[in-house]
């Protein structure tokens, strides 16, 4: 692994992959490699964020992302507070800005935000004095997911340059897909988008990616097959007719996977719908990286928090 300038990333916030250049992304991945080693030690604690306050502000329910950020902050020594929408005053009618101003007054150092509306995290970032990490805004971006996916791929394939990566499924509603396509393209991969036309964002072909509506064609010679989650409410006739038809044409099973390269690897951001977008034999099979993605999630979030902490004021 070539080491790049470890200080390439010097942003105040991480709001999206869009706008990051390749050295910035690679420096975060390099830092995450170190975090992997830390996480694999018995003593998993560092002191980088000692005395700092991290608030996880989740307007949308999340288990894995929120716990991953919580663990990352704690391993770096930060005081981590979780705020979820059900216990917040948003339910009582407070606006997003009011919530932000209230939290700001508590003088946190980093706020990690997930919100169901695209752009909400950017809005919040403009109103607070601390660093903001986007943990997912609507169907827009989920930058730490893209970074953890890139890290997982890099660790398994050596490098990302030149790989054929098929992102499959509900691209339309997926912030994971958006962040990933930008990130992986920045790192030199050939990105393909595969899914039914009802789940493709209009105009996506002008992003410069290849679009397929047929899994076999889209997976042909792919190095990485990245599956996306299909929300239950989208399976029943609105966007696709049924989960059984979706599985038939777009569910990743061994037959469809056989069109990819023999050593192709399978990824999924979780949580999976087994028997809808992915067959259990593939999800749990030898080519699956799905569990490793979760481990890399903590490491990447540690790297992001550390990188942001460097630009926090020190007095």
């Amino acid at each position: 692994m070539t080491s790049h300038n470890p200080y390439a990333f010097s942003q105040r916030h991480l709001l999206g992959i869009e706008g990051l250049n390749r050295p910035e992304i690679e420096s975060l991945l390099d830092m995450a490699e170190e975090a992997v080693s830390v996480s694999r030690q018995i003593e998993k604690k560092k002191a980088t964020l000692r005395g700092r306050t991290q608030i996880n502000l989740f307007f949308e329910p999340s288990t894995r992302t929120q716990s991953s950020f919580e663990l990352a902050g704690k391993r770096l020594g930060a005081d981590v507070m979780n705020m979820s929408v059900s216990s917040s005053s948003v339910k009582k009618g407070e606006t997003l800005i009011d919530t932000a101003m209230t939290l700001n007054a508590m003088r946190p150092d980093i706020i990690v935000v997930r919100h169901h509306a695209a752009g909400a995290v950017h809005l919040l970032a403009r109103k607070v004095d601390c660093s903001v990490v986007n943990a997912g805004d609507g169907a827009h971006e989920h930058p730490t997911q893209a970074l953890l996916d890139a890290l997982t791929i890099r660790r398994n394939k050596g490098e990302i340059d030149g790989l054929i990566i098929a992102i499959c499924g509900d691209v339309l509603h997926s912030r994971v897909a958006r962040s990933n396509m930008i990130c992986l393209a920045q790192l030199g991969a050939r990105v393909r988008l595969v899914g039914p036309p009802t789940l493709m964002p209009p105009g996506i072909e002008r992003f410069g990616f290849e679009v397929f509506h047929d899994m076999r064609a889209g997976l042909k010679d792919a190095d990485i097959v990245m599956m996306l989650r299909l929300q239950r409410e989208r399976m029943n006739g609105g966007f696709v007719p049924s989960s059984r038809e979706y599985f038939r044409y777009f569910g990743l099973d061994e037959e469809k996977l056989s069109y990819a390269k023999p050593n192709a690897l399978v990824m999924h951001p979780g949580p999976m719908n087994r028997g809808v977008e992915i067959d259990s034999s593939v999800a749990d099979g030898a080519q699956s990286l799905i569990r490793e993605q979760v481990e890399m999630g903590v490491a990447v979030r540690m790297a992001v928090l550390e990188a942001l902490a460097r630009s926090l004021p020190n007095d």
Partner: protein
Amino acid sequence: MTDAPLVLINARLFDPSDGRDERGGLLIENGVIAAIGPAVSARSMHGARVHDCQGNVLAPGLIDMRAFMGEPGAEHRETLRTASEAAAVGGVTTIICMPDTTPAIDDPAVVDFLMRRARDTSLVRVHPAAALTKGLQGREMTEIGLLREAGAVAFTDGTRSVTDAQVFRRALTYAAMFGALVIHHVEDPCLVGDGVVNEGEFASRLGLLGVPREAETLMLERDMRLVRLTKGRYHAAVLTCRDSLDILAKAKSEGLTVTGGTSINHLALNENDIGDYRTFLKLAPPLREEDERRAMVEAVADGLIDVIVSDHNPQDVETKRQPFAESANGAVGLETMLSAGLRLVHDGSIPLRRLLHAMSTRPAEIVGLPGGTLTLGAPADLIEIDLEKPWVVDAARLRSRAKNTPFDGARMTGKVMTTIVAGKIVHQYRDV
């Protein structure tokens, strides 16, 4: 197939798909056309069974893109068997049946059932069109991929329009992924309201509520824009007025993958034929003014309207012996479609070639079926037509279980003498 070869001799070979019109014969082997031309005779085909066409037209069997069945769910009106008998008499060798059954054809298992029933009971070929939305409710798209694999050849909500443009947009988009054909009944139910006949002077004199042409044109205009957006493959089931023709012509000139059909009723009849509240002429869309009928005939003649359908819709006494406004829509048509069309050939308004093209070749192309042609290797689905045979429609003698024909008592010129499906004679006319 072990049937002995069948040779049809002394025929006027008439193929609307390639312009063939010549004296000669046609040899059928293994259910397909094995030889055709002036050289094919009984003598040249030793050992074959012989059928003498006596100089009559021999043309591809008709493919009816819009027929409603009573099976499953309303077998007292029509079964696949009775419909197929009517079809055979009328020269229809392939029926595309509509999904408006009970249950609706919106599940692969129903498609499978229907195809098995047709295989076991029908004299002619039957291909189901499946529902475009679940339960024909216009809300959620059906399993277009799985239905297609089961054998559905097109997707339509039958007599219903999909009013929700978002639902229709997504269904068109999704269907386009499979190259699947969407057939749409173009009639905005809000504008139809309680209307039962064409809106205008005639309706007002009868004291009936009318259906404006705009119920059709607004929906068609919307559809054309959605087709442009989605690149879907679209067929307007039954168009009935001049304004719709303008919309269709514009869409075709833009290169959209759209085609249009009309029903034999809208070509042969106008609103005045309803006369004294004759419910057998209550149709949806309704019969229009004579001007509109003439425009439709011209559009068939020049090819703008691609397809003529029977719009066969069996209704029973309990649904038709009602006050006009309360009776069901629809008329049977499988048995009379060709003869009613030949009226327009005899009066010079549609060439025979175009009539048969609109009833066989063009439907085959649009639906993606191998028939509608006399070329070698094509299925031996054939009809022998005596163009000059006079006959009178007698509702009581229709093969269809339901007798709701708008042509009862009509004098026709031209009749199907023989109908052949996959090389088998399934109907032969006998004078009674």
